[in-house]
């Protein structure tokens, strides 16, 4: 399949999903709309995580440090700066997480593999400790609640506390960001990251500065996770210690593994399945995290390529040799 056709396929899919996203709320109840909003937010979080794990081969157990930092920054600036606009807070928040991504990344990226995984976990624990202990700023265990300002576009006044309005804002901003992530994987920079995972020595030999490329990727994923985190706070109009905890890092690992690391679509699928399952299972039993754990281990043992890998191989079987356009494959 040529690159152009694969692009066209993906864009067709993206437009299709977007239209579904636009039409879907018309028949949905408020509760379902809230669930959809959460899915979109976590889809971006999972996609940003997969840029690290799937594309760069970096296993992190601390991705919630950026998610939580974004979530807390939004809550803090709304509480500290009166009259701040909706997007003003989001912009400050992603600037803070991007800076943090740069600081943490330049400390950690000298390591790879297992030590890297360990250090991300330790840094996440540090962020968590700060959030719990620095009570005067973060509210400690009580968390922080915010009053969501409306958006005034000049020609229209958007009431953000209305879930339908909030859903559309999330769909447009996070959706565009997710599309940009896909575009990023197709740029020279994204391909460099991919090739680095396959053979770093060779990339160095060809004259690429792999450390800089890795740092850029890490900062970019920190930025994305921060954006998802700030929307998480805006959506709940509250942020709690969970947002920055290792539990949150755990959740994103579960999502990405269930969805599959081998494709761009996988994490999005994983996030949707996870949020849906969580909603569905928590109605039936209090023990839903246990069931999630079993599903996770089952996936690793028997479906290592995740749901997207499963669907891919089904489609391939149905249509002979045919690749889904979302595949992360280097040969083209």
């Amino acid at each position, binding site marked *: 399949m040529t690159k152009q056709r694969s692009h066209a396929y993906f864009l067709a899919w993206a437009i299709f999903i977007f239209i579904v996203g636009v039409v879907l709320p018309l028949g949905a109840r408020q509760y379902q709309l809230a669930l959809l909003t959460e899915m979109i937010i976590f889809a971006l979080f999972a996609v940003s995580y997969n840029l690290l794990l799937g594309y760069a081969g970096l296993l992190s157990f601390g991705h919630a440090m950026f998610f939580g930092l974004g979530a807390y920054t939004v809550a803090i600036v709304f509480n500290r700066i009166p009259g701040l606009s909706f997007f003003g807070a989001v912009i400050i928040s992603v600037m803070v997480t991007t800076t943090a991504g740069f600081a943490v990344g330049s400390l950690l990226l000298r390591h790879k593999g297992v030590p890297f995984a360990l250090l991300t976990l330790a840094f996440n624990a540090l962020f968590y400790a700060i959030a719990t202990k620095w009570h005067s700023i973060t509210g400690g265990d009580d968390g922080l609640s915010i009053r969501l300002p409306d958006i005034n576009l000049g020609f229209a006044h958007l009431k953000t506390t209305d879930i339908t309005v909030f859903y559309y804002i999330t769909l447009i901003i996070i959706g565009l960001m997710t599309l940009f992530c896909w575009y990023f994987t197709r740029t020279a920079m994204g391909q460099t990251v991919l090739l680095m995972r396959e053979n770093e020595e060779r990339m160095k030999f060809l004259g690429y500065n792999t450390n800089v490329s890795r740092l850029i990727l890490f900062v970019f994923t920190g930025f994305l996770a921060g954006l998802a985190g700030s929307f998480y706070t805006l959506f709940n109009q509250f942020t709690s210690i969970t947002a920055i905890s290792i539990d949150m890092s755990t959740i994103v690992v579960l999502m990405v593994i269930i969805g599959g690391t081998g494709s761009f679509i996988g994490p999005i699928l994983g996030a949707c399945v996870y949020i849906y399952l969580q909603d569905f299972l928590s109605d039936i039993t209090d023990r839903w*995290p246990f069931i999630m754990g079993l599903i996770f281990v089952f996936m690793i043992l028997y479906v*290592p390529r995740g749901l997207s890998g499963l669907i891919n191989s089904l489609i391939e079987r149905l249509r002979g040799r045919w690749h889904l356009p979302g595949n992360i494959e280097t040969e083209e």
Partner: protein
Amino acid sequence: MSDIPVFFLHGLVYAGLLFLVSSGLTLVFGIMNVLNLAHAAFYMLGAYFSYSLLHATGNFWLSLIVCPSLLFLVGAAVERFLLRRVHVYGHVQELLITFGVAYIITESVKWIWGNYPLGVNLGGFLTGSVNLFGLFYPVYRLFMFFCAILISLIMAAVLFKTKIGIIVRASVDDSEMVNTLGVNVPLVFTGVFGFGAALSGFAGVIAGPLLTTYPGMAAEILVDAFVVIVIGGMGSLGGALLASLMIGELQSFGALLFPKLSLALMYMLMAGVLIIRPSGLFGEEQ
């Protein structure tokens, strides 16, 4: 100023506990190149098994022997039936499977024993205090410290004076070469993994009565133990010992001198060590 010896002893006790947990972790990493994220979950299981056994029999000494043995079986089963299956897929999958096991164990613990702290009543002479050069110190903490020293000495004796120890140390160096020499390396892997789980479980049994038994205890010690093996150097037992002492004392005196900063101190030490020596104090240069 009379606090200083007390805090020094507290630091030593916590260092002993940390060494019990991190030595198994670093040994497993050295041999199998697997970072066992379920290691602290085994520690927690040890504490909970001991709680139930104490409830049933009231005999603490019994649980000191039974719980680690049970955890040996749990650990060996995890290695044999889960870890070995994903070995072919590489380190990331291995790490993820131990992560899944840790998650399942934590959730099972919440399910079976409840999501709240459990107190353990020991009774007997362990609950009292003892006069130590004019300083009253709880017997139980001293007991923990001596347990840690005893186990470390036994471990050192096994590792350095027996044939099994030679095989294990050789496997740390080059497990493929050991395999070619006719040693059943997969069996060594299962044994070491189970042994690490047992050590961790033992630490859990002795930590339970002091640090309270609750579902968050695993995550708490996991991060500390990780910091220890990162500072000490991954796979190095001597490094784990030194780093355990450093972290134990740092936490103890940190709580005394800078109560607000005590958590951050540990990470600052780690960041400092990593900047100067990225592979840890005793780690091999990559």
